[in-house]
Structures are given as C-alpha cells and as structure tokens.
C-alpha cells in the first residue's frame, strides 16, 4: 500500500526542484540578457540592477548563462538517463526473466561495461566520434546501463516466481507481455528512486565532462563549462563561480531529497 503521510524530504526536494525547473523553463522563452553576447564594458561586473548576478570575463550576464546553462545540463542528464535506463531496463528484464544462457551472456557483457570507469569511456568516445553533447549522452548513457540492468534484473527474478506471473501465463499472455506489462510496472518502486539517483549522477558526470572540456563546447553555456571558465577568476569575480556552483549543489540536493521522498512514498 502506498503511504500517504507527508514526507519532509519529498516536500523540500519538490520545492527546490520546482523552483529550479521553473527558472529553467522561463529561460527557454526569455532571459534578462543574451547569454552569449560579450561586452567589454561589463567584464567582471558585480551584482547590480542591470546584471542581478554579475557578469563573467567576457562581460556576459551570469544569470542568463546559468538559466540557459542549467537547461543544457538538465537536457543532457535527462537524455543520458533515458538512453542508459532504456537499455538497462530491457537488458535486466530479459536476463532476469529468461535466465540461463541469455542471463549469462548479457550479464557478463554488463560486468565488462561495469569495469570501465565513466571518464575512460567518455574519453574513448570523444577520441572516436569527437566531443559534444551527443558524445557524452551516448558515453555516460552506456556507462549507466549496468547499474539499471542489475536493479531491474534482481527485481524481475523476484517477481517472476510470484503467482500472478503464473496466472498471467495461464491466461495466455506471451513472454513480452508478461515482462513489460505485468512485471515491469511492479519494479517501479525500486526503479524510480534509482532513476532519480541516476539523474543526479548524470548531472554530475555532464558537469565533470564539460569542466574538463570534453562535454558541451563554447560558446554554449553549461554549468560545468561555466565553472571551468570561472576557476581562474575565483577571487576577482566570485559570483562567476558561486552562481553555477550553488545552482549545481541545489539541483543535486533537490533531486536527492526527491529520491528519498519517492523511496519512502513507494514503500509497500
């Protein structure tokens, strides 16, 4: 049974995420200034009425760049989790349900993938197909496949022995229908928190890659890219670092709390 009592993590996490997502959503349509327009007159400008959170080393408005940059980070994270989770869920469901040789072969491939550090995986992809958003989405997504596959596999192994699955088989449902229509919805209580944690990891991974210069390329803003550009001017223009840094912290905190809240909510 789903617990209905209020969960403080869910509320705080929900509020933080709602505020940040609203700011990003507004940034889709309007920003205070063009995020890529340079202005020598406003280089390293502090907070003011015109530039609420100051300007960077090229005189670009920091608030506008954070609004657009966090969208980029979020979009990359969403697509990464979508890509990794889709492959992982399908792999985990098939191995868990069928077992035997299918399980052995796919899970050994999974183990091999698991052995690769994310950064190495991304570097390999960057060197083969070049840097950019799509490269890190594919590379980080593939690195995420094993964790999702393991979570779903263990849930499916538990569920496939339950009587409702036998009843579904007796009612004439095929294997595909049993896996995707009968069993998978029952793995949601475990999968949903894992998806949110995966989403957090994807945000951090994207930020890390962009910080290292192998993710989002200039002049497009992303939180990691902004942090990389700001590090040289840490004391001269602290807002350049603080704003994207705090946005990143709040984003991770918000989704972590949301994950805890969802975990509590879906406990049966």
């Amino acid at each position: 049974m789903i617990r209905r009592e209020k969960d403080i993590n869910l509320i705080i996490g929900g509020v933080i995420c709602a505020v940040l997502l609203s700011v990003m959503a507004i940034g889709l349509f309007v920003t205070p200034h063009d995020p890529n327009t340079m202005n020598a007159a406003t280089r390293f400008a502090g907070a003011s009425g015109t530039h609420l959170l100051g300007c960077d080393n090229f005189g670009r408005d920091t608030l506008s760049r954070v609004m657009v940059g966090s969208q980029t980070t979020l979009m990359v994270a969403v697509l990464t989790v979508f890509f990794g989770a889709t492959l992982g869920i399908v792999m985990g469901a098939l191995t868990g349900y069928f077992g035997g040789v299918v399980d052995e072969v796919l899970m050994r491939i999974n183990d091999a993938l698991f052995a690769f550090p994310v950064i190495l995986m991304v570097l390999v992809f960057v060197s083969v197909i070049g840097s950019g958003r799509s490269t890190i989405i594919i590379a980080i997504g593939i690195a995420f496949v094993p964790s999702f596959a393991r979570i779903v596999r263990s849930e499916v192994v538990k569920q496939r022995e339950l009587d409702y699955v036998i009843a579904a088989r007796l009612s004439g449902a095929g294997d595909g229908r049993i896996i995707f229509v009968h069993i998978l919805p029952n793995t949601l209580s475990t999968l949903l928190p894992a998806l949110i944690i995966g989403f957090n990891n994807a945000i951090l991974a994207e930020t890390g890659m962009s910080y290292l210069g192998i993710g989002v390329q200039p002049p497009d803003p992303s939180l990691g890219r902004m942090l990389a550009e700001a590090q040289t001017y840490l004391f001269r223009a602290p807002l350049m670092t603080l704003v994207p840094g705090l946005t990143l912290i709040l984003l991770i905190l918000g989704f972590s709390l949301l994950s805890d809240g969802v975990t509590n909510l879906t406990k049966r």
Partner: protein
Amino acid sequence: MNEAENILSVQNVNVFHGSKTAKRRQVLFDMSFSLKRGEILGVVGESGSGKTTLVKTILGINNDYKGLITVGCERPQMVFQDPYSSLNPSRKIGWLLEEPLKNNNCYAKVKRRKMVAHMLERVGLNADYAMRYPYQLSGGERQRVSIAAALIQTPRLLIADEPVSSLDPKTEKQILELLKKLHREMGLSIIFISHDLRIIRQLCERVLVISQGVISEAGRVEDIFAQPQAKITKRLLKAAGMEMGANA
C-alpha cells in the same frame, strides 16, 4: 484415456526438480490417475508431499517430467493458495479480469467490460470492484477475484491449490459454497488440493492421498474415510479430528 468421459489423464508421471546440471532430484514417482468430466477430485497430503508440483506439471508450468499427461480441454485454469500474491498489485481488478480475454483476442472492449461485470457478480462481488486495486480488497475478496479471473475464460478444468488455507473459517465456507455453485452451474471439473480432509469431504467425490511424491491411496471419498488403508490417510484423518467412524 476415455476421451468422452475423462478430461484429464495422468499416466506413469515422474517429476523432477532442480536444474538439469546440478541437484536434480525426483519429487513425484510413477503417478497415474484420471479425472472425469464434471467431477471434483480431491488431492490431499501433508506439506511438501508434492501436491502443488503435481498440478504445476499438469498445467505445463513445470516441464521436467517423464510420462504422459493428457488434458482434454483448452487452457485449464488455476486458483492459487495465496490470494496476496496471485493478483498483480499494480493493476485494477477490471484490468486483471479483462486480460485473459484480451490475450485470446476475444470480444470487443464493450463486451469484455460487460463480461467482467457479470463475472464479478457471479462470484458475489459488486461490479464496482472493477475499479479497485488488489490492496483495497480483503483476503476473501481477493480469492473471489482470483476465481473470477480463472473462470472468465470458461475453462472446463479448474485446479484449486489450497484456495481456502489462508482464509478465516467464515470466508472459507463462503469460498467453498461459491466453488460448489460454479461447479454446478458451469459443469466444471475441479482438482481441489488441500491438507484438510474436512474440506475434501464437503466438496469432493473422489480423493487422492499423496505422501512423499507417491499416491498412497485413491478412491471414493466415503470409502477412504470409512476404511483408510494408508498410514498417511489415518494420520490426516486424525489431524482433522475425523478418525474412523467419527462424524466431523
């Protein structure tokens, strides 16, 4: 097998458990029996005697066996022991009852919905139950839904695996009455598994007594109860407070 008379024939069936590479062991030994059309056959035995393994083999869930099983009807159905794990928790009752009809491409959506409402009423539940989730139902209500899900495909053979063992006495009585009624109305053949001989006496015409994977005794309920031959039968009768000559 006498096709006209028997709906199920089990001949010299030996069943195995465990993977084929390790720890494979035999759990049922040389079982032979038949079930007549419209008959209720009781299968009784202690826990671990192989009752559930037997029915899972008949239903094709367990395929590691030798011998001949002939089922004279399409899609025999099963009612499970645990009403809490036999219904998909993430789906509404209406969806669960409609699913077998969808899987077999039977009927249009409107007709399916009508059939679901009719079947719910037939098992003593209001048609509004279609909109509820399993967790909103009691154990007895869940078991009624399980029976409805099994019978909506109008099977000729129903296997009930200790369907009342986890229910309170009042609900147990209601479910047994329901099975009797549906047996009469639909002409169902039923294999009723239980470890409780009192229930077998109320419901069944013939009984198989299973012990350690072997049929210890088989025959008409009255005969077995009046003159039990096997030790296990005597022990089960004693456990049910129905020793020879006693009227439980």
